[in-house]
């Protein structure tokens, strides 16, 4: 199976560990992720704040390249990229006038967009297309005893909830359970992490992250599992500042793909687990090189 793959700027930068763990895990599932040729930044939230039409052009270029690549579907792991690409698809579908502007812009690159490549999140692909039975087959070292707080973040369920419930998504919960882990009840699973505010306006941004970490610890989690590189950065990268303002809430935050890799028996070093600020403690029943 081959899917087109849109990493996004984060996965090549601060979110490297996500890509590092995602590609081998997908390979283990017999899926090849072919990186989109000459993909450009999706625009995320910042571009939309400056010029909406151009933001659509940025996203559309990627969609057009994906169509050219010829694979059935495009996988976008970062929540923000996922939202921007899907949002653009909605706009192009609903507004013929916007489509005309985009078509004219795309023509400059000899590209066209017809809208037949769906943009999907890797979580969706793994659980809904491939299936949990396939995942279970490849689990060599079940994560028994590991208590995980599943954190989805906001942009994967809002405003479009294509593959899961908007208020109580369970795709990752079920995946983690299939890996043998114990999923704790986590009411804040879709509450905003602060987004880019943690870097620009520390106090409000950090408060959002602090709340999430505090509750995860309260609910008895050993680790927080995320699906977005910005969420992972916010929950993992600012512990000193959070401790200075409020209290210590040091709990490791990892990508769900890293947990999958561990369960599949892949070496921790290869999964980028050493890239987190708060190292993940050894899994009960096995050692992990953190």
């Amino acid at each position, binding site marked *: 199976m081959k899917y087109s793959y849109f990493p996004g700027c984060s996965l090549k930068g601060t979110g490297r560990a996500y890509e590092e763990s995602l590609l081998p895990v997908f390979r283990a599932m017999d899926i090849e992720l072919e990186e989109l040729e000459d993909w450009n930044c999706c625009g995320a939230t910042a571009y939309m*704040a400056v010029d*909406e039409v151009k933001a659509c*052009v*940025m996203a559309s270029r990627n969609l057009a390249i994906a169509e050219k690549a010829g694979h059935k579907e495009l996988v976008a792991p970062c929540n923000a990229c996922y939202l921007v690409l899907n949002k653009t698809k909605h706009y192009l579908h609903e*507004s013929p006038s916007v489509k005309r502007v985009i078509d004219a812009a795309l023509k400059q690159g000899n590209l066209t967009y017809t809208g037949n490549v769906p943009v999907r999140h890797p979580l969706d692909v793994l659980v809904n297309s491939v299936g949990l039975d396939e995942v279970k087959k490849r689990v060599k070292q079940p994560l028994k005893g590991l208590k995980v707080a599943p954190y989805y973040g*906001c942009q994967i369920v*809002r405003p479009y909830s294509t593959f899961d419930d908007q208020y109580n998504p369970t795709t990752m919960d079920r995946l983690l359970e299939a890996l043998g882990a114990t999923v704790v009840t986590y009411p804040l699973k879709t509450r905003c992490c602060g987004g880019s505010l943690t870097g620009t306006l520390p106090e409000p941004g950090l408060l959002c992250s602090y709340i999430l970490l505090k509750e995860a610890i309260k609910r008895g989690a050993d680790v927080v599992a995320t699906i977005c590189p910005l969420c992972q950065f916010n929950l993992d990268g600012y512990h000193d500042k959070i401790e200075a303002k409020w209290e210590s809430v040091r709990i490791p935050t990892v990508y769900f793909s890293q947990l999958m890799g561990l369960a599949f028996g892949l070496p921790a070093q290869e999964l980028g687990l050493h890239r987190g600020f708060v190292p993940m403690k050894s899994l009960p029943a096995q050692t992990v090189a953190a």
Partner: protein
Amino acid sequence: MAELTRTIKYEADRVPGFGREVMSVPGCEALESCIQCGTCSGVCPLSIYMDYSPRQVMALTRADFKNEVLRSHTIWLCASCYSCTVECPRQIRITDIMYELKQRAIKEEIYPKKFTIPVLAKEFYKMAHSQGRVTENILATLMFLKTNWLAAMGQWKLGLGLLLRGRFSLKMESIKRKDELNRMLTTVDNLSIDSLTDGRSAPKKGSH
């Protein structure tokens, strides 16, 4: 003795037509039906830091108080988590209205000079336009240099941590066909958007 400020608003303080303009962007017409219930502020995780609550921004926009709205901190504090949009009982696209207000504030240069968020947005925009990709660490550095480079000093520990973990790169990422992207983006500028978008200058938004 504390400074007393008079807070009355006269009709002259309004910018007639501003509300209609904002609402004319397709999808934002629902703002007309706002009943000021306050659900948006109630679910917004950032509302506790905002000078005007999201509900107040909606009321001010509808009442044409352009200056108050575009100078508020609220529009910059919005993290686009879409909670308000999803919960609104009138299905008003509040997040999209916030984006629109951000765009207007940037276009009219109405924001405090060294305010980090709009500066970041503009730098992001420039970098994405010229390089096709965004190198996070360079972007962050640019933002600090342009707003408060002392604060950049305060981030040294984070920077070092990222460097040690291999997540820090100062090599500018870019796409191969930069001029192709440039042409695509400038085409948008040159096209008479109004004629193509039936008089509307932003993408049409359907309801979801």
